[in-house]
């Protein structure tokens, strides 16, 4: 198992390299560059080429693509994440600022959706065909199929604009002094994100649970005279858990990358909304860093999922 984990971690390196190169290439292929974003087209025409080139040189944009990539990579290897092209802010500082916001939102949603998704999914499966099951199933379908932004806007309309219980967006308010002061801000985005994520987990848990309950070993467990809770939870849910863990594991990257849409809708100053504006302004170093972080998060999550599955399901072996 240890060698497997080490090997998987080693594989991450070439994968990260390839992906980082592709992202860089993708940025290169989009029209314009950071300078063309800084200066409006009208001004562009009145500025001499020399001056623009000087600006490019000062931002290190004049080098050929591959050289720039190489410089960026060297910086990364030395633990220097670089500076945002647009504003010159150190990228680690930007991330240090945005990551807590994203974590705060996503962690709430992840924990909430895991717990409620599993509980509701199991109830739904155990009461299969009942009104409870039908209500939950329909709700779950809605939850999965309604786009996040729509759900978010409806929530804002009702709770912020009509009822005025909660703020429309943002994370902190001027004059806050403790974490709890901004609790009202996190409630709505976290709940909206949670509910959307819960719906997915619930549907998954339900079908996985139904699958487990139809297995012969459930009958064996009953034939041993075990109480129903033990049959359903220890024998049914324990087995049903594996695919649910996989689903949740693959959602872990949201902790790092944030939910781009929810962050936009709720003006949440997290990594997701930062990414959008960085892409818009072709801020290569920032885009690269966030993309790379997300990729690493995805790869790590998949490794984590593998390890967890192996821990949970003795049939899965990692040391091959």
């Amino acid at each position, binding site marked *: 198992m240890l060698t497997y984990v080490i090997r998987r971690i080693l594989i991450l390196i070439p994968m990260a390299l390839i992906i980082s190169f592709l992202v860089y290439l993708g940025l290169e292929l989009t029209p314009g560059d950071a300078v063309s974003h*800084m*200066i409006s087209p*009208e*001004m562009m*025409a*009145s*500025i*001499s*080429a020399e*001056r*623009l080139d*000087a*600006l490019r*040189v*000062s*931002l290190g944009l004049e080098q050929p693509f591959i050289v720039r990539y190489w410089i960026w990579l060297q910086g990364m290897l030395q633990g220097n994440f670089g*500076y*945002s092209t*647009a*504003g*010159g*802010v150190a990228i680690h500082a*930007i991330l240090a*600022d*945005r990551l807590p*916001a994203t974590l705060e939102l996503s962690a709430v949603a992840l924990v909430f959706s895991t717990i409620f998704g599993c509980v509701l999914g199991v109830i739904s499966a155990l009461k299969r065909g009942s009104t409870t099951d039908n209500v939950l199933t329909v709700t779950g379908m809605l939850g999965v199929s309604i786009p996040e932004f729509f759900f978010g806007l409806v929530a*804002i309309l009702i709770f*912020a*604009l009509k009822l*005025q219980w909660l*703020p*429309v*967006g*943002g*994370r*902190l*308010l*001027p004059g806050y002094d403790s974490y709890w002061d901004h609790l009202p801000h996190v409630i709505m985005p976290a709940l909206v994100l949670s509910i959307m994520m819960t719906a997915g987990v619930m549907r998954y848990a339900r079908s996985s649970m139904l699958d487990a309950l139809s297995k012969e070993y459930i009958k064996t467990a009953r034939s041993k005279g075990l109480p129903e809770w033990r049959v359903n939870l220890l024998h049914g849910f324990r087995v049903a858990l594996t695919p649910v863990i996989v689903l949740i594991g693959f959602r872990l990257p949201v902790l790092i990358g944030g939910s781009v849409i929810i962050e936009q809708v709720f*003006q949440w*100053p997290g990594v997701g*909304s*930062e990414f959008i*504006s960085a892409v818009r302004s072709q801020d290569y170093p920032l885009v690269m860093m966030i993309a790379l972080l997300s990729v690493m998060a995805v790869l790590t999550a998949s490794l984590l999922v593998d390890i967890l599955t192996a821990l949970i399901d003795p049939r899965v072996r990692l040391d091959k």
Partner: protein
Amino acid sequence: MPRPIRQRLKTAYADIQKYENEELDTIPLYYQQLFIYESNRVNRNGHGYGNEQYNYDWGIVDWTVEPDADGKKVLYTNTAPAQFFEQPWLNLGIWIHNKVVFDHLLVADGSLTSFSPQLAESYNVSEDGMTVSFTLRDGLTWHDGSPLTVEDVAWSIKTAMMIPTVNPVVSNTIHSIEGADAYSDGSADDVSGIALDGNTITLTFAKLDPNVLLTFSQFAPLPAKYFPDIDPLQIQQSSFWQKPIGSGPFMVKEVKMNDFTTMVPFPDYFGGVAKIDEIVAFPSGDGDGNLLKNAGAHKADYGFTKNTADVSALEDMDFMKVTPADIPYTRMMWINHYPMK
């Protein structure tokens, strides 16, 4: 853009400008409208409206806002930064910090046609228009308490000469100053057309620029001491722009990038201390996607928009008032107007 094409575009643009200037009387002037919205909590106390994309004499110091439950007068607006404060020479009046944190030598009226002194106590334009001098008020200070001097103004002008990210009107004016080209291409160490004398800065122009006064009603001097040894091209990358220090009626108090920025009255402002206790600005560009949401939640007391859909929605909110402002504007399409070679 490949260089030859850009060169051609540039020449063409210059030709068009020349033609425009020659034919000024015959060119139709278009109006675009811009809409200033205000909540009913805000009172301009008699100050008028103007071209909100620029800086004009809007009397923010006299504005009042209905106090909130704590008795605090807070004005909510937008155009706060997401990652850094943009330096004020590019998009002159778009950002709230350009409007309230930085002052200018002159102040324009709402239509940007007549000017009066602001940081300057007085100004003088020579008969031929080739020499312009500004005398600063006595005892001006930056928000950090250090004196605002003609050296700061000169440094700002010279720095702006070196960088492309400057509004074209401003850029045109400062490049018309005598010795500007030699300075910006590195062949001279100083600008021969800038002379300092006590509290007075005198600019001598190599070519006549009709927009000098407009420029200096929009061009914000910066405190030079925060930019020691800076490569002018990298000015935007300076850490100064995480929490800038200006000379305007409000100073930046708290910045949560991409979340909010607060500004409070500058107690030593020469024009008196502003009556509003705090400005809270939420991040946005000049088009604010969250405007309606924030307005609905009473978190947009002032701002401007060009989005007509937003305007009609704002007008439907009984606590919002929308005032249109005309912005004279020429924009034409030229077809086969310049040689194709």
